[in-house]
């Protein structure tokens, strides 16, 4: 298995099957991953289009319907919260934020990680040593605390969440990318490019980075749930997005305070959050098996 994967990575054109078709074939045989992908797709569509199915808005307060239990007739499919807001619509709006943060912050960490790791790996030697030493030092930092500090000190805006979460998650990515780059730069096509006098950063961009994408894809699917988790952790502490906007973490927090009288305020957002994390983890695992069977 492992040799087959290596062959496809280094010489895709000879096999006539690219790394990706190969991986997708293998991924399709993984029933758990396929199910997870389907659920996630449905979830995404629901989160985007679902609010239109309800007559209520996410910040609309229905004073006659405070803490009502889930009921199809009234249109409050998941019930309402302590000030009469519709849980169904709020859960889906929260999902928009959570998924958006997950994807955007992962992209931020992806960009930093690839740029950093590929540079360190490609130049090697002293540059590599210094850059990786910095990563080692940063690795030991309790970043969660710093993110909390940031959120408290500089107010709660969503842009800061993106940047802060992205900025703490790039370390893994940088390490992996560096490792891959070290082996890639000894390949003939890189030597050929060097012999032709292509400048270093152009080589990194044109020859190194495209060949990293397989490994990176796995870590993207594993990073997204981590990021969603961090965001909901912050929102849970009341440091994430601001009222009346919401996210799954904030909803779980509100639900936890009402759960004695109205368990549905806790259960629905909790299930949505857990389900999403569950699916991403399954896809990530499946993708890892598909692309790199002997990883770790």
């Amino acid at each position, binding site marked *: 298995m492992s040799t087959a994967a290596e062959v496809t990575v280094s010489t895709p054109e000879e096999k006539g099957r690219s790394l990706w078709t190969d991986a997708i074939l293998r991924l399709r045989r993984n029933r758990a991953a396929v199910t997870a992908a389907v659920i996630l797709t449905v979830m995404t569509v629901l989160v985007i289009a679902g609010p239109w199915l309800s007559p209520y808005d996410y910040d609309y307060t229905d004073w006659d319907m405070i803490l009502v239990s889930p009921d199809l007739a009234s249109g409050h499919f998941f019930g309402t919260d302590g000030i009469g807001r519709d849980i169904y619509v709020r859960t889906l709006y929260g999902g928009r934020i959570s998924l958006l943060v997950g994807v955007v912050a992962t992209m931020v960490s992806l960009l930093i990680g690839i740029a950093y790791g590929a540079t360190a790996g490609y130049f090697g030697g002293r540059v590599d040593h210094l850059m990786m030493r910095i990563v080692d030092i940063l690795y030991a930092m309790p970043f969660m*605390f710093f993110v909390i500090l940031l959120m408290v000190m500089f107010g709660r805006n969503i842009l800061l969440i993106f940047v802060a979460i992205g900025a703490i998650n790039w370390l893994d990515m940088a390490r992996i990318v560096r490792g891959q780059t070290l082996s890639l730069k000894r390949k003939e096509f890189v030597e050929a490019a060097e012999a032709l006098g292509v400048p270093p950063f152009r080589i990194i961009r044109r020859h190194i980075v495209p060949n990293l994408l397989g490994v990176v894809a796995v870590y993207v699917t594993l990073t997204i749930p981590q990021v969603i988790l961090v965001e909901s952790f912050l929102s849970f*502490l009341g440091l994430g997005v601001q009222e009346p906007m919401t996210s799954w973490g904030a909803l779980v927090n509100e639900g936890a305070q009402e759960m004695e009288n109205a368990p549905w305020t806790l259960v629905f957002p909790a299930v949505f959050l857990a389900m999403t994390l569950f699916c991403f983890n399954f896809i990530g695992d499946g993708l890892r098996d598909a692309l790199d069977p002997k990883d770790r």
Partner: protein
Amino acid sequence: MLSYALKRFIGAWPTLLILIALAFFMIRAAPGGPFDAERSLPAEVEANLRAAYHLDEPLPQQFGRYLLNLVRGDFGPSFQYKDYTVTELIMTGFPVSLRLGGLAMMLAVLIGVSVGALAALRQNSWLDHAVMSVSMTGISIPNFVMAPLLILLFAIFLGWLPAGGLGDGSPAHLVLPVVSLALPQIAYISRLTRGSMIEVLRSNFVRTARAKGLPQRVVLLRHALKPALLPVVSYLGPATAAVITGSVVIEQIFGVPGLGRYFVQGALNRDYTLVMGVVVFYGVLIVVFNLLVDLVYALLDPRVKY
């Protein structure tokens, strides 16, 4: 070994220094100050206050003073809890957090390792599949979601356990917080153990041990377990960090008067010295613990050269 330990020990200092500096300057860079109130103080009073707390000195000097005091174990006065120093607050909160976190870690390692090893021994059996799906669920449900759900089930519906607080300090009060803190770690450690155990069981030295006719128990305990546990040992560093971070919310949810709660409240009240103290305290703890884990790893793994 000694020189390796020494090298690692020296290597940890820059990390610590950067950590403290980062926390210090980040807090100073924040808008607003500890004496901001709804009614602003007269200028001279505020000036005196600032002087009393040495806030009027240039930043580098303040940082130097902070470092010096830190070496003496003095985290400075708390701005919010007027009669306490931060050191006192840490010393009252930390034992509670330590008990919570320590128990959770112990539980995580014990259950995680045994369940993971069991799943590896019966690879692809129903037991294995069950363990793996349960642990995937455990990883996917964050502890701040798990905790309210556990309270809902065991405290509210069933009424078996108290929902929060420490009460008289009886073990029953600790069950739910410890379990919700431990569950994700149990899940992670069991997956880790299973993976490495499967790999070790396939290796040549285990086959040799079996070929010698050693009983299964000896093969497992004497030969397979130690190398299989190496990834778990190296995971203990990140696990501690995760448990410490997790305990911030868990203490909040269960109303446990630990260090995590001081941190959140301190942050919300802009009690700079307290927040800073907790970050530095926990940061140093994590760095030191990581160092210890690395040293233990080097001791256990004969392949590590130092």
